[in-house]
């Protein structure tokens, strides 16, 4: 990732790259216009100015000099050029950047919720479909269609290096698409105000070469592996009994779907919607005190004993 993970003055994929030259063009036009007007204004003020401290305004006689209308005429003609160019360029770019491409190689169902991202990979049959959260893997070099579903309130899907924003609105399904040219991790963020933790509702798009992506997909399709150690087994019981009220771990009786799917939790780089790096310290802190990390988050503090916490961590760390 570069110095500005959410900056959009560079692009890493077809859709964002289509728009980028236009973005730069309107920036350059805008800066030039502002500079020219600033210079003209400065000259206009300084060339004949009188100091209001020394001269009484009312003592300066009124005269109507010069043909000012010419200024407006010339100004409008000059302004019309960049406006027309931008208008036409905008329509051309819009035609290229909008609308999902016909040749999309993968379709994803993304449902943003307060304050995380549910990501479903549909398959030809139920056993080819799976869900994950907050980390979207895509193959490089092909367009990916993203169907955006409204979960609770309005959110907006944005991966600046790959695609501009599209809102996810309850009651309708919006379409976005993206394509990554090179492997890498690209930061995404919710950009429609959605409540307490709007600020910490990030995600990552992981672009991988096709074979790597296929391996990842095969791994995600599997259920959780059985708990081996005694601690992990105790942890599994706690996870089924408590975490399972909201979370799913496929292959266990934890089967709720109102919070991120944990089946392959440890395969993800971050937790809490891109807020913390996924390591055992952060994981323990998050489980015990989510309200400290993300006040207002829908996950309640857990108040586990030290032993219980260790057991839960021992189990979660098996979820590769």
């Amino acid at each position, binding site marked *: 990732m570069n*110095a*500005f993970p*959410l*900056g*959009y*003055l560079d692009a890493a994929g077809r859709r964002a790259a289509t728009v980028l030259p236009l*973005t730069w063009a*309107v*920036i350059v036009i*805008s800066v030039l*216009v502002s500079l020219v*007007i600033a210079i*003209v*204004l400065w*000259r206009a*003020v300084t060339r*004949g*100015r*009188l100091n*209001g401290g020394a001269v009484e*305004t*009312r003592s300066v*006689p*009124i*005269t*109507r*000099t010069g043909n*000012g*209308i010419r*200024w*407006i005429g010339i100004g*409008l003609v000059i302004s*019309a050029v960049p*406006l027309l160019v931008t*208008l036409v360029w*905008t329509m051309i770019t*819009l035609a290229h*950047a*909008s609308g999902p491409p016909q040749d999309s190689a993968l379709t994803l169902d993304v449902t943003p919720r307060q304050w995380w991202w549910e990501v479903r990979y549909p398959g030809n049959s139920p056993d080819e479909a799976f869900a994950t959260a907050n980390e979207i893997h895509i193959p490089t070099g092909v367009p990916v269609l993203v169907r955006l579903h*409204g979960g*609770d309130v309005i959110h*907006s899907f*944005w991966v*600046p290096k790959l*695609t*501009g*924003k*599209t809102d996810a609105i309850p*009651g*309708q399904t*919006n379409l976005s698409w993206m394509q990554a040219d090179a492997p890498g991790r690209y930061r995404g*963020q919710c*950009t*429609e*105000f959605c409540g*307490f933790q*709007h*600020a910490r509702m990030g995600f990552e798009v992981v672009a991988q070469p096709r074979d790597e992506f296929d391996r990842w997909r095969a791994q995600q399709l599997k259920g959780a592996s059985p708990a081996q150690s005694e601690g992990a087994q105790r942890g599994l019981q706690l996870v089924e009994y408590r975490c399972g009220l909201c979370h799913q771990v496929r292959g266990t009786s934890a089967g709720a779907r109102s919070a991120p799917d944990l089946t392959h939790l440890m395969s993800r780089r971050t937790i809490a919607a891109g*807020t913390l790096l996924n390591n055992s310290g952060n994981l323990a802190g998050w489980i015990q005190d989510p309200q400290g990390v993300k*006040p207002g988050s829908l996950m309640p503090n857990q108040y586990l004993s030290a032993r219980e916490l260790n057991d839960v961590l021992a189990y979660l760390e098996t979820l590769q």
Partner: protein
Amino acid sequence: MRTADFRTPEIGLDSTAHEARLKRLWETSPGIKGFFTTVDHKEIGKRYIVTAFAFLALGGIEALVMRLQLAGPDLTLLTPEQYNELFSMHGVSMIFLYASPILSGFSNYLWPLLLGSRDMAFPRLNALSYWIYLASGLFLYAGFFTGNGPNDGWFNYVPYALRDFNPGMNQDFYALGIVLLGISTTVGAANFIVTVFRTRAPGMSLNRLPIMVWGTLTASVANLLVIPSVSLAFFLLWLDRQFATQFFDPNAGGQPLLWQHLFWIFGHPWVYAIVLPAMGMVSDGLPVFCRRPLVGYSLVALSTVATMLLGFGVWVHHMFATGLPSLGLSFFSGASIAIVVPSAVAVFAWLATIWLGRPVITTAFLFFSSMILLFVIGGVSGFMTASVPVDWQLTDTYFVVAHIHYVLIGINVFPVLGATYFWFPKMTGRMLDERLGRWNFWLTFIGFNLAFLPMHLTGLFGMPRRVYTYAPDMGWDTLNLITTIGSFVLGLGILLFIVNVMKSLRTGERAGANPWGASTLEWATSSPPPPFNFAVIPTVASRHPLWEDQLGEESAKSSIDRGMLLASGKETIGTSPLDAAPDMILEMPEDSITPFLLALGTTILFVGMLLKTWGVVAAGGALATLALIAWLWPRQALREREPAHG
């Protein structure tokens, strides 16, 4: 037959006895009684201005607290809940309670003076409009100070504003507060429209109106058309929340996008409504300090109207990311780009006026002329967001925050501060201090640009809007710190402005009737003006009644000292809409408590609705009804009733 209908006004010269008689007729009684009953537009205008500045100060303090929270990454001065209420209340205060009312205040104060009349067309309606504005401001802040302020931004998108996600009273305060404020804006707009078409001085045809009148007229027509939309939206929201209707609830077939359409059909024209009158202030004020008439008067007046017309066709540019079809988006994109043209007319007219004139550098001039640059910066960033694919990146980042602040501070606050330096002498009889004024200007100008120019970059580097904090590894730390520092410098500038006003009220240099040598009618009467504005109704023969001798362009001369006396009652002259030919004497109402009582009753009714306490609703409704009956009771003095026979 009523003989009064055919009375011809006596024409004559001003005299002391005549003025004494007018004063008796027009003066508001002193003390507490006068405070609650006055219908004098100057009194109401000043109240509007003071109240709006108070809300500006509150909104500014809210902004500074937010800037402390955002000065560095991961700060914890505020909880997310507090931050959300602060940024929402900041927007509500600035947009609803400051930006529009401040312009209403100046227009209320100035219009009858600019138009050569003795009051607004409906003085009691004017008082009602103020009282309801004050009440709605207090209503909204009552929510805020009890922890129930708006918490979903000023745009207030559903479903987050619905009860499922927002169970507190926050949204009920907001929804009812805005419906209440809508009453004030609506009656105010109607009053402005009738005033301009009915009570101009004889001879002031439409092509002789000051541009500020064009601006406020245009804004008022727009308000009449769009306020119903936002009032409806908020009323439906309240019904959804309290009575389980389902206009916006997607689970029951409601449409979240309906809210956005209703809101932005109002919201975007509203943006023009809160800048066009301010642009008018510049168009009228700037030429005075350039010592020449405005370049391209007709084009500027027409572009004011054109901006508003186009302004009705751009609301969807707030919704480019909502998944609407590209064909529809391209139309709104085109309209949003086209709206640059009429704005450019004003910019070139101002530039040419300065270039071709002899600018006298005063504080008012500095505010007016620097506004041109801020207007252009806010304009070009708006032009960038008009391009749909570019906007998909720009929208909802700090780029847009920078844009709206260049628009609202640049095109509203700067002209308003300039206008205060310009018209303060007229309102108070004293000049504002010029030395303090320079400090005021430069601190405001530097602070503002320091805070908001780098913010464009913060946006381009991807910082989303409406976040209570941000992570340290995003590259936004330095830029945010600069913005915070700039915002405090800006705050200091505004503080100096308040200090200057306080000081100059007591010790400012005395201003004569026309301290700037300005051209329009308000400068023909004393500073501050007498309760009746003009001892004789002036007759106008040109666009610049007080510059006619120097310009020497018109064959006819305006008549300032000699005109209709109209002293047999509280009277002013009614004129025809286009040419301002006098056609009847208007009997103006006396001071009255009924506007205050109607506002009070309405407010009680709204408090009752908020609490869903129907007894309170009934009491408020009864008081409002009684006040209305008293208000509308036909009176002989206003010739609403036949005189008794015999």
